[in-house]
């Protein structure tokens, strides 16, 4: 299985990616490769720079040095929106939704942007029922259809997390970065999120940031460990699990499996 993944072509690559906030180095020469169809996890202790790394890849933060490549193209200076258009999509660690709008409207905004109709201003939303139908279709895929008319603020947190994933899927990603998709979800509900993630289309390259080691070892075929903004190790779950250095800095604290 891992051999198959490794032979895939690199979909996302960073070379010498750096970020400083003044004297504080939050990403140190990170070389990272995500292959086509990968199921890859990024782990590391709190403050290791995992979310910063995602922000650098997506362009939400400007890198201090190094490069990001998507499917072979250098996208280091492409805008955040431009990267999304090229298929680089993320979810947020903390729900980042249009809270005052309905669930369907949230999806509509993503679908209309992706379909390239979002700048049209002469005809009403209702003149393109296919875009709305597509938004509804995505909600059905994640079993959110009954919540379509509800405001985001009326949804339990766990269902909001599903909306995050639905929005990401609406953008038809080639690379999907999931930033702690189950964070803040009661454990009784987290299986819904995990099912959704397991059900992601195979062709999408997925990078998941996760604290829950059970999730990581269940989902990931490959794991990268980030410590203090630098890559400590990359390998299969078995390799990482048996890596003494990793165990001492990271797994030793929280892993009781």
């Amino acid at each position: 299985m891992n051999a198959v993944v490794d032979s895939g072509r690199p979909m996302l690559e960073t070379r010498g990616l750096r970020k400083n906030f003044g004297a504080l180095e939050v990403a140190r020469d990170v070389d990272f490769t995500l292959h086509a169809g990968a199921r890859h996890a990024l782990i590391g202790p709190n403050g290791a720079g995992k979310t910063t790394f995602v922000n650098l890849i997506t362009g939400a933060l400007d890198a201090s040095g190094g490069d990001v490549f998507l499917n072979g193209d250098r996208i280091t200076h492409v805008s955040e929106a431009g990267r999304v258009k090229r298929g680089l999509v993320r979810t947020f660690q903390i729900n980042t939704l249009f809270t005052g709008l309905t669930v369907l409207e949230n999806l509509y905004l993503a679908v209309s942007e992706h379909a390239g109709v979002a700048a049209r201003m002469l005809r009403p939303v209702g003149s393109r029922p296919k875009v709305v139908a597509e938004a509804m279709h995505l909600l059905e895929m994640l079993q959110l259809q009954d919540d379509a008319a509800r405001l985001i603020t009326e949804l339990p947190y766990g269902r909001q997390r599903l909306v995050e994933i639905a929005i990401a899927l609406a953008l038809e990603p080639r690379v999907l970065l999931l930033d702690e998709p189950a964070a803040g979800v009661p454990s009784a509900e987290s299986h819904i999120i995990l099912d959704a993630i397991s059900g992601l289309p195979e062709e999408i390259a997925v990078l998941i940031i996760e604290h829950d080691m059970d999730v990581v070892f269940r989902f990931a075929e490959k794991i990268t460990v980030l410590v203090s903004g630098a890559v400590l190790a990359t390998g299969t779950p078995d390799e990482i699990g048996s890596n003494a250095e990793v165990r001492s800095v990271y797994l030793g604290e929280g892993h009781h499996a």
Partner: protein
Amino acid sequence: MADANMTPQPSPAVQQLLRRHRFRVVELLPWIAAIAVFYLFPGYRLLATQVLVLILFALSVDLIVGYAGIVTLGHTAYFGTGAYAAALLARPEWQETLWNVGAQPLVGIAAGTVAGALLGLISGWIILRTRELTLLMLTLALTFLLHELAKDIDGLTGTLITGGFDGINFTMNPILGIFEFDPIFYSTNYWYAFAVLVVGFLIVRTIVNSPFGATLVGIRENVRRMHAVGSPVQRRMLMVYVISCAIAGLAGAVWVQVQDNVTIAVYEFELAGAILIMVILGGTGRLYGAFIGVLVYMILENLTETVLGTDPPYWELVVGGALVLTVLFAPRGLLGIGEDVSTMLGRKRR
């Protein structure tokens, strides 16, 4: 992609989204009221005309403040520029140079619209890179700058251009060469403002109901998320800003045309603040909030002045009080209260 025709019964949420732009009967109400006012209160036609123009101005403000969430305290910059554009074109001394078309009302409003849009494009390109308080201060600064310019340009250039504090008086030609402006009964003036408002309103209504309008609300609700769904946020904001400034310029042009003069007041901060208060009073991001807000504000001002006099200006106290009450108890404005009441009544009926 799911085929809409294949689903036998689209869900209520889908239907709601697909039908949102449809006209409802209740939307005729403000227009019927506007027609009725003309006949019922002939003595108040100047005030009523001003209300119509200010509604258009308020709509332009609501488009950026209420929908896109771009705060501004300086929209008079564009209103005033549209006003001066139309007024300068209508200056009697310049008519010959302007091939005698300068005083044509439609030429004036076209010029006001373009002037507002151009200024919006240039200023927006710069100031929309900032947010919140910085943006607020920059919009304010632009208005002050233009105010000083309009006031002092005659002295600086040594020629009579804006007329400084006194402004410019002029006479408009008949609309389309047929309908003469009427400085006593204000009938043509009123219907002219009415017609422009109808057109302006339909433009704004079309925009807010379009996919573009939906993205504006998205920008207001969560900019980070808009970036993350691949939306070119900066471009969208500039686009709506230019449209809003064009409409503000249009309103400014009509404002001076129906009154046959322009004064420095069109650039004053007082008006910029007042128009924002009107939009907040009525309810932001709701189209008809502009109608209600302007109406209530103007009536409050007028009524207080009539009852208590203009010195001291008690009406400022009344309007200020109304604003405080609105912000504290009805953050969605008077229209928000109306929505709540109708929801409550609807529940009772069921």
